[in-house]
């Protein structure tokens, strides 16, 4: 193996963080945090958005310097001035947001910064191949990373860490974008490696996952350690209460509000990939009724993004029809641009709020205008109604509990959850007849999550039709009235949210099962 250091005995503390304090301008991200991680364990960290988990881990990984406190690795007090120091100390980190260069190959991404270990030639290739084997990565080393799906990217990240000979591995929200099966596979790998003596620090907002994999869990609230517990002896609900000091919400819908009135009709929709005949979307037909939430399940990269963007007019359908039924009657949207579709009454919560939802360098009230620049109360004819926009933004801030010092603050200065609340508030303000919600609560903490679910549900009760795309199967099952499963650009199965389990849904999403969840697909 690559590490020649004596492997510490199981159960001995390998990482001891004592009295760590980190202040950012205006925020104390960590205050007097103490954390002890023992060799060979999976140690979970839990906490709300912005609780300071990532910051703490970055400190351990040498990317941030603590203002106070000490770090002890394998019994030796160390100063980690940069990631290089941490790597040398045997620490590796898989970041919350992928740290991959898309335009470089898998091999290059792995080698980067660790060229001294095995050179950059054959020996390195062999070692990478070995690690790919171990982590289940089945991509050619010379493939550009941009061609990989999320699960494989995750694996590349882990290969990167292993390649550097890390014995202590930090996984910051590694499961946020994975489906249950992928999560299981990841956990399998983690357990295997745990057997071999690796130590893990694991961060997740999904408490059942924490309970499934972790040996110990430490909860952080507002930058300070609340306590450490044994996850096997504590329920998710108790854990959540430790985190937020309150009950754990669940996205359940009960009484159905589905009506007979069609709102969105999509027929035989087809979308060809750029420069090729291959269909990214094939033969998609469905209808969303007023008061209905139609959930689309699918592994990321199977065409959900494209479906949403085609309905929004950001991509041009190759064939098929999209119709919206409003009070003024049927409107064929197929030939309209995005703005016209929005004006026709579609609200759109994009899957990536920073790329598609917000102008990060503009104040909140300017963001209120985006997508509504032709409509009252934010516009008057060809002019922008600044007073109207400000006023309505204040309303959203109030109504949706956006935590911000004011509406002149730049959108980029809000935390992710608050950004999302602003987007949801905006998209529900135009009195939409249809809401397209892509991953509406991704990366959002439990409190904000509950609020967003509640708002969607309220609007649904008023007759709003919702097309919901989510990777969070609990959310999908809890909110939807109907679920359709998308695989390789087709709608392959239908499931009843009242009876289906996440595991079954996961099987259908990966094409592994043709039974149980309704009509099968032909592949």
């Amino acid at each position: 193996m690559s590490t020649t250091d004596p492997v510490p005995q199981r159960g001995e503390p390998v990482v001891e963080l004592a009295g760590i304090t980190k202040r950012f301008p205006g925020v104390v991200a960590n205050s007097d945090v103490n954390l002890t991680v023992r060799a060979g364990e999976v140690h979970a960290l839990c906490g709300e958005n912005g609780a300071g988990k990532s910051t703490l881990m970055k400190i351990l990984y040498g990317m941030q310097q603590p203002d106070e406190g000490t770090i002890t690795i394998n019994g030796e007090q160390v100063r980690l001035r940069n990631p290089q120091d941490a790597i040398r100390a045997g620490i590796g980190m898989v970041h919350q947001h992928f740290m991959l260069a898309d335009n470089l190959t898998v091999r290059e991404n792995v080698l980067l910064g660790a060229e001294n270990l095995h050179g950059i030639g054959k020996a390195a290739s062999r070692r990478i191949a070995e690690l790919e084997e171990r982590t289940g990565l089945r991509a050619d080393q010379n493939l550009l990373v941009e061609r990989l799906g999320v699960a494989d990217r995750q694996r590349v990240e882990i290969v990167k860490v292993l390649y550097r000979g890390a014995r202590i591995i930090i996984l910051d929200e590694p499961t946020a974008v994975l489906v249950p099966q992928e999560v299981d596979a990841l956990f399998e790998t983690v357990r295997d490696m745990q057997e071999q003596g690796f130590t893990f620090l694991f961060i997740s907002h999904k408490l059942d996952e924490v309970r499934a994999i972790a040996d110990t869990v430490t909860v952080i609230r507002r930058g300070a350690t609340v306590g450490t517990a044994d996850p096997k002896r504590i329920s998710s609900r108790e854990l959540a209460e430790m985190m937020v000091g309150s009950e754990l919400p669940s996205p359940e819908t009960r009484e159905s509000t589905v009506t007979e009135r069609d709102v969105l009709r999509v027929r035989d929709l087809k979308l060809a990939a750029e420069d090729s005949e291959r269909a990214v979307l094939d033969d998609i037909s469905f209808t969303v009724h007023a008061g209905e939430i139609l959930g689309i399940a699918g592994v990321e990269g199977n065409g959900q993004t494209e479906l949403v963007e085609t309905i929004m007019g950001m991509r041009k359908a190759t064939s098929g029809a999209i119709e919206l039924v409003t009070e003024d009657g049927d409107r064929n949207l197929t030939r309209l641009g995005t703005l016209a579709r929005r004006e026709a009454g579609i609200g759109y919560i994009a899957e990536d709020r920073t790329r598609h939802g917000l102008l990060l360098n503009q104040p909140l009230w300017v963001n209120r205008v985006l997508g509504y620049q032709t409509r009252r109360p934010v516009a008057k004819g060809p002019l922008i109604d600044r007073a109207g926009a400000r006023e309505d933004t204040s309303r959203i801030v109030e109504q949706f509990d956006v935590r911000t010092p004011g509406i002149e603050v730049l959108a980029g200065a809000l935390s992710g959850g608050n950004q999302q609340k602003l987007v949801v508030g905006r998209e529900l303000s135009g009195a939409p007849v249809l809401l397209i919600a892509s991953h509406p609560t991704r990366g959002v903490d439990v409190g904000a999550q509950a609020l967003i679910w509640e708002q969607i549900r309220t609007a649904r009760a008023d007759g709003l039709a919702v097309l919901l795309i989510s990777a969070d199967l609990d959310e999908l099952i809890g909110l939807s009235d109907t679920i359709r499963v998308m695989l390789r650009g087709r709608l392959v199965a239908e499931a009843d949210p009242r009876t289906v389990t996440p595991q079954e849904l996961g099987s259908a999403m990966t094409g592994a099962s043709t039974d149980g969840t309704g009509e099968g697909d032909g592949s």
Partner: protein
Amino acid sequence: MTNTVIESPSPVTGPPGGEPARRRIPGWARGLLWAVAAIAVLATASYATGMDVLTSSNTANTALRLALPILLAGLGGLWAERSGVINIGLEGMLILGTWGAAWGAYFGGSVWTGLAAAILFGGLGGLLHAVATVTFGVNHIVSGVAINLLGLGVTKYLASLIFEPISGNPRQSPVVPKYDTYSATFLSDWLGDIEAMQRVFISDAAGLIRGLITQVTPLAVLALLLVPVSYLILWRTRFGLRLRSCGENPVAAESLGVNVYLHKYVALAISGGLAGMGGASLVLLPGGADYLENQTNGRGFIGLAAMIFGNWRPGGLLGGAALFGYADGLQLSGGGEAVISLLYGVVILLIVLVVLQLFRKQWLSALLAAAGAGVLYYIYWSNDALPRDLIPYTPHFVTLIVLAVSAQKLRPPRAIGRRYRRGEGD
């Protein structure tokens, strides 16, 4: 209901829209293919119009010379932009290089001291760009504009301070040593014979190659070698990998212990040095000027264009520089008639494109290309000389036409032009 748990579900290996990885021809082979295609088109045009100058050794020789500063500036751009820093200050660094070359060659007494001083001066310009953009996070374009101004102002100032007492002219240096030229005589004679045989294609190719191996200067050889060398360093060494990673995702690079600032600094110093070398190629080549105010005349910008043309790759930028140099050389030495026959070559190119697009069922662009071909053919057919005021701009026209014809799949480094600060990544 069954709970099927799949061991390793990774059904999708690429985002939709990404094509199933097409088999790719290696870069060098594609370059060769392009070169052969280009010679074929030129040979046909030369044969059809009876203009030997299209493929004469003299044209090739001239093209090489005119392409040198552009090539070197382009390489400078490549190094900077691969590390994530936009460099429109190339012009200023080129100017600094011209002054340095003359100064070094005059006071050092040798072309090599001149070259060294040019690299040094250009490199200083690059470092200034690094201080501004990397350390102070200044907008890259602002800094580039400032460096262009400073390059001009400082060299003018230094020239009047140092050169004027010797040359009696604040805008010109005294006479400085020039590079000797070398020819591969045997090969060149043999190729000369083939060229004289007037066989289609073979003679044309011989002529072009012969032009590249006669009266070559060490500086030209060095510059050409720098293309593969740049490739090897940037794509085949650990330093290059780290440097490129700074241009693609500096935060990721940082997270792996790469010193992003240092790599950007080094990249910019090299960038400036290369641009400085480009300046030296205006001063130290036989037949060139000594230091002369304003002699760079926008070549830094053309170099930048050549680099974008070449899609941020050394081979591509060599192609861009060669295209520009060739068209310029042709127009200068062959005049209007030669340009007219080049037009014929462009028409052939467009016809090929029409066929290709018809084959791909891209009706609209086929139609456009056909219309373009028609118009150009009409111009060719109805004129024997173009308006002479426009002829000097042949290389600019050619570059535009080639860009418009070739589908643009440009792939700039992902993080180019972005501000990066240590420890600010998420």
